[in-house]
């Protein structure tokens, strides 16, 4: 992977939700960077703050959520210091986003052609006719057969996979520098997921855009990403390139997660999986110290009192843990 200049630098991002029952620190001091043309996988279970982080970058967090601290440096400028109007111009043109539910993410009352064209017309100086031509081109690019006919169809006339292709076409309409994919294949069937992943890889190679690839599925990250950030309870717990994370996981959470997922490489069947005990803590009542300590087999008194910092333990490999896993993890994945 080429070491190119930084495209996005998220520093100490904090997005909190101020609800009636208390404050939920959905994103609690996340930092990560994406270089030009890089695919960063952001993985974690539900409630780890990965989706909120992506919405924070787009500044689409809805009340009672609020970005309370941090910097989001995109191409050298802090997005959090931009006016809403400047931010709006970046959304959809320089940073585009696709969502998990292709069924509900498209407006049911407008044709897909209309919805893609709209994005083009708002950001580019094109006539209606040129925009329409570009839309059909885009539909063809994302592998939708008969794009001229599809142009005039409504979302409910398309299958889930087709709709996600439409979402991707929409995101690609202005050649973004960064694509945020928030669980974009989760709702799809395996064979359709494979199609969409191939499409995304293909587009990434062709255009050289960077992708922030958010998912709960570790296997997808192994396939798609150059670097990986593992999130737990609003914080990054481990960060490194894809080989470091999958071959030498150092955080007990990453380690446990990789061991507990049944995979096609597991030879023995019917033996108990090495499961992580317990469950993700209640967002209103985070445990003191390291948030993972109640589930961690290596937890000590220190872990129950202090929150470890994200520290570099080898070049480019960062871990938030007092007692990183030492063993090489070969037979696991």
């Amino acid at each position: 992977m080429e070491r190119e200049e930084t495209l996005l630098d998220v520093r100490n991002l904090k997005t909190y939700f101020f609800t009636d029952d208390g404050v939920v620190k959905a994103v609690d001091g996340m930092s990560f960077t994406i270089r030009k043309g890089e695919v960063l996988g952001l993985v974690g279970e539900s409630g780890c703050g990965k989706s909120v982080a992506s919405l924070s970058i787009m500044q689409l967090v809805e009340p009672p959520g609020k970005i309370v601290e941090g910097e989001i440096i995109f191409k050298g400028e802090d997005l959090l210091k931009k006016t809403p109007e400047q931010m709006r111009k970046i959304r959809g043109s320089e940073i585009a986003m696709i969502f998990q539910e292709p069924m509900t993410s498209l407006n049911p009352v407008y044709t897909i052609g209309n919805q893609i064209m709209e994005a083009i017309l708002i950001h580019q100086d094109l006539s209606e006719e040129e925009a329409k031509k570009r839309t059909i081109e885009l539909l063809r690019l994302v592998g939708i057969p008969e794009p001229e006919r599809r142009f005039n169809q409504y979302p409910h006339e398309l299958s889930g996979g087709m709709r996600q292709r439409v979402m991707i076409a929409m995101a690609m309409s202005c050649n973004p520098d960064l694509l945020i994919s928030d669980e974009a294949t989760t709702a799809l069937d395996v064979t359709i997921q494979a199609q969409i992943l191939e499409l995304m890889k293909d587009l990434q190679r062709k255009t050289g855009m960077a992708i922030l690839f958010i998912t709960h599925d570790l296997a997808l990250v192994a396939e798609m990403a150059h670097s990986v950030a593992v999130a737990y309870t609003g914080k990054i717990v481990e960060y490194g390139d894809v080989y470091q994370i999958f071959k030498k996981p150092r955080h007990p959470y990453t380690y446990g997660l990789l061991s507990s997922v049944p995979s096609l490489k597991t030879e023995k069947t019917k033996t108990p999986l090495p499961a992580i005990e317990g469950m993700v803590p209640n967002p209103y009542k985070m445990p003191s110290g390291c948030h993972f300590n109640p589930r961690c087999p290596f937890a000590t008194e220190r872990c129950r009192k202090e929150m470890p910092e994200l520290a570099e333990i080898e070049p480019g490999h960062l871990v938030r843990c007092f007692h990183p896993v030492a063993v090489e993890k070969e037979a696991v994945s």
Partner: protein
Amino acid sequence: MAVEATKIEEVLTGRVETYWYLVGKRLRKHRLAMLSLVVLILIILACIVGPYISPYKVSELGSTTEVLQPPSWKHPLGTDELGRDVLTRLFYGGRISLLVGFSSVVSALLVGIIVGAYAGYFGGFLDTILMRFTDIMFSIPVMPLLIVLSSVIPGAGVWKIVLVIAIFGWMTDARIVRGMFLSLRENEYVEAARAIGVSNNRIIWRHILPNSFAPIIVSATLGVGGNIIYEAALSYLGFGVMPPTPSWGNMLQNAQYAMAIAPWLVWSPGLAMFITVLAFNYLGDGLRDAMDPKLYR
């Protein structure tokens, strides 16, 4: 195999959070609904106790000097064209109006729940027939029909009015209940019950109905208010509760012609009715928020 740890401590220390406990907790945060609840309790108490405290009898005619007296210390809300104390009649009228409101809602609910539950649960032909019938009933404007019904059904008692209002009040409940049943019967806990071998009737009454309470209770709360107005309108038009039994509606029956000389006759029953109905509406709204299923997943 360890029990999942985190929630255990709070579960052990906290009280058992039943659904109603949670609803109550949320409802208490809804200030207007709580205020409405207090107002309603006061009104109901006043209507029950009022007549016993009042020095006047409900149909006691005053002497000629007491006819159409404006409010005074002796008659806080004045007297009507027959010299009767308006406040006393207001208490009695409230009893009748609230009685009609509550009983007609309860009767309509019974019919609506049965029709809706069976139509929604079994679906198919039964559902088609019942819902066609409901559609037909819905296509007849209520007020004219109420008028026609109350003049063709013999008798003049309060219960006739309850019956008449209930006959045309069940359709909304039936539709709500059917809608709930249609969606709830797709839930896996219903399938689970069937897999166990639970009978249809037990599934309907024990599994699905308790989960459809929220919209039923909201509809019933709003319905009491609505039916008080129906009764009043019918009485005002001369088809409702017949004098000398007072109701808030028939107290207004003659008020229109006296409004130039005795406006107090217009104000008090109308205001009593308005405040009651407003309170029911706010309470219903508060309950709707408090029982929102999205909050209890």
